[in-house]
Structure formats: C-alpha cells, structure tokens
C-alpha cells in the first residue's frame, strides 16, 4: 500500500505541477485550469503550477473583500471555501497523506539517515492559530490605507511558496534578484528550518504549522472516507503507534484530527483491527469480522 501511496503522491505532484514549458516561457501557467482548486499546498505562483492554492486564493479574497464589496462584487470566498469543504468532506486529511506535494517533499526528506525525534504534541495547535489569524483574520482586518489586506501566511510564513515559487522565480527571472530583502531572508530561514526539522522528525510542517491541514482536520469526524477501529479485534498492542508518521495513537483516538489516512497502521496491525470505510460501509476485501471466543454448538 505504501508503494501505491507514493505513486499517487507523485501523480498528484505531476497533475498540480504539469506546466513543464516554464523554463522556456520563464513565467507561470496562465491557462483556464487555474480555476481548479489544488487539493494540497501548492503555490499558484510556482512556475509549473496548473491549479490555484486554496490558501493563497482565500487570503487574496479576504484581503480584497472591502474593495470588491464597494464595487458591488460579492467575492467573499464562497467558491474557494466550497471547494475546500467538498474536498475536506470527502477525504479530510487524507489529502495531506496522498495528494500534497509539500507532504511528499517532507516524507522524502525524512528518509535521509539521521537520528529521528518525535514532535511535542501540543505544538499541533499552532496550525489552527495559523488558519484563524494568518489566513482569515489578519488578511480581513489588518488593512492598509486603501482597504487592502495582505496575504499574511503566504508573505511571511509559507515554506512551500518559497520552495515552489520564490526560489524558481529568482532563478528564472534574474531581474527579481535586486528586489530580494529581509522578507525573502525571513522566508528562506523558515524553509531551511522546516527542511532540517523534516530530516529529524516526520512531517513537522503538516503537524505544527499547515493551515490547510488544520482546515481539513476539522472534518475528521464527518469525512466520507476514514479509517475505523474494530475494538473487538484491537488488542492494544500499540503496533499502530510506532508506524504513524503523524504521532497518532490510533487505538486510543480513532478519529484523531492528525490522522492523514496513510494506511501505515492498517499494515502494521496484525489483528486486522483497522480498516478503511466509506460513509460507514467497510471497503470490499476486508477480512470478515470474527468476534473473539465464539463457540458454535
């Protein structure tokens, strides 16, 4: 299953970054596909990006909401939130595990041989603060004299944007190098920090700082496709603890908001206690349920 997941991740990376003529055009893709929401964190200023990043688009809409309303345009983010919500309602954070290019990047970094460490669990709450303040409230309320808000998360934090857009653009367009300053240095430091952390710990950005992951996590209880625990089969052997890249203790918290449904625990469980379900219906192919200590007369 891990092999299949890696291929799916690679496929999504290629689909959402399919504009490969950028070395010639030296610009970004400007075609109609950019009206489609990228499921994962994928900067739309990336030269190869073929879809829009929901976080970037949402911040832009929040930041420009006053001017839009003054002009009689009700651009308040319904389209973007609708697209994000549909994705979240279907699969939630499964997107993080299967379709996010920056998640794939962190997984590859974590394969570099080094001492490995866990992540202090309370740090996960930072990403919800990022979502609330950096993506919604600050772009909405911290406005300039003209009523424009900034894209706070993209501008000051997003390491995916630095990696996928900032660095490629200064390579493709040398004229931009004169504009580099403290802002870019700040973002570069954040990127290097998360790269180093990803080598030492599993998916640190997803677990602590990603607002998109935080949004999808809100759907952990109601999403259509989710993992479920068969408590009759579970022996609490804790095999699922060791393999989870997100530090989830699945037997203790089957609807954990951190779960990215990577299915690593389903393989590690020797008792078939963890399975995938769609809307309450277990997927076909699951071993039939056998309650323990059944005696037939």
């Amino acid at each position, binding site marked *: 299953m891990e092999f299949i997941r890696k291929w799916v991740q690679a496929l999504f990376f290629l689909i959402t970054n399919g504009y490969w003529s950028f070395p010639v055009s030296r610009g970004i893709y400007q075609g109609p596909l*950019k009206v489609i929401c990228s499921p994962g964190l994928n900067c*739309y200023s990336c030269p190869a990006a073929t879809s829009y990043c929901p976080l970037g688009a949402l911040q832009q809409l929040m930041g420009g909401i006053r001017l839009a309303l003054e002009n009689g345009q009700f651009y308040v983010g319904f*389209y973007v939130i*609708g697209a994000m919500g549909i994705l979240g309602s279907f699969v939630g954070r499964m997107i993080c595990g299967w379709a996010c290019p920056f998640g794939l990047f962190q997984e590859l970094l974590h394969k570099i041989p080094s001492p490995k460490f866990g992540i202090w669990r309370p740090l996960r709450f930072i990403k919800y603060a990022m979502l609330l303040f950096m993506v919604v409230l600050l772009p909405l309320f911290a406005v300039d004299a003209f009523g424009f808000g900034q*894209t706070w998360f993209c*501008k000051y934090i997003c390491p995916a944007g630095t990696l996928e857009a900032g660095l490629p*653009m200064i390579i493709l367009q040398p004229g931009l190098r004169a504009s580099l300053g403290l802002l870019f240095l700040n973002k570069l430091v954040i990127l290097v920090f998360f790269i180093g952390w990803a080598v030492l710990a599993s998916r640190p950005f997803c677990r602590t700082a990603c607002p998109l992951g935080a949004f999808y996590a809100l759907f952990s209880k109601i999403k259509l496709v989710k993992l479920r625990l068969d408590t009759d089969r579970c022996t609490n052997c804790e095999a699922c603890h060791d393999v989870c890249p997100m530090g989830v203790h699945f037997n203790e918290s089957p609807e954990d908001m951190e779960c990215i449904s990577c299915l690593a625990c389903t393989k590690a469980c020797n008792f078939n206690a963890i399975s995938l379900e769609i809307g309450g219906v277990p997927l076909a192919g699951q071993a039939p349920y056998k309650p323990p200590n059944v005696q037939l007369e």
Partner: protein
Amino acid sequence: MKKNKNTRKVTIRKAPFIAIFIFFVLGAVGISLGEPSRVLEQATQICLSCIGIG
C-alpha cells in the same frame, strides 16, 4: 444450532453527505457570484509579495 453473528449491521453515515451538499451549495453560490473569474485572475499573476520577493 445458534445463529452465528459473523456480520455487523452496516450503518451509513449521513453527516458526510450533508457536509458535501452544504459546501457544494456554497461553491455554487460562489460560482453564481462570479468568484471563479476573480480567482483565475489572481492565480494567473505572479504575486511577488506573496512569495517573499518585493
């Protein structure tokens, strides 16, 4: 012989379908308001300040 209850009753969860419907309606409202054209307009321009340049 007692009936062997090897199978569990499958209950279809309604919550995901309700959520999908609500967000589908939300998205449709956004489309009717013309938001996709604004999103496309933004996404086809390089936002230099967004990526830490300029």
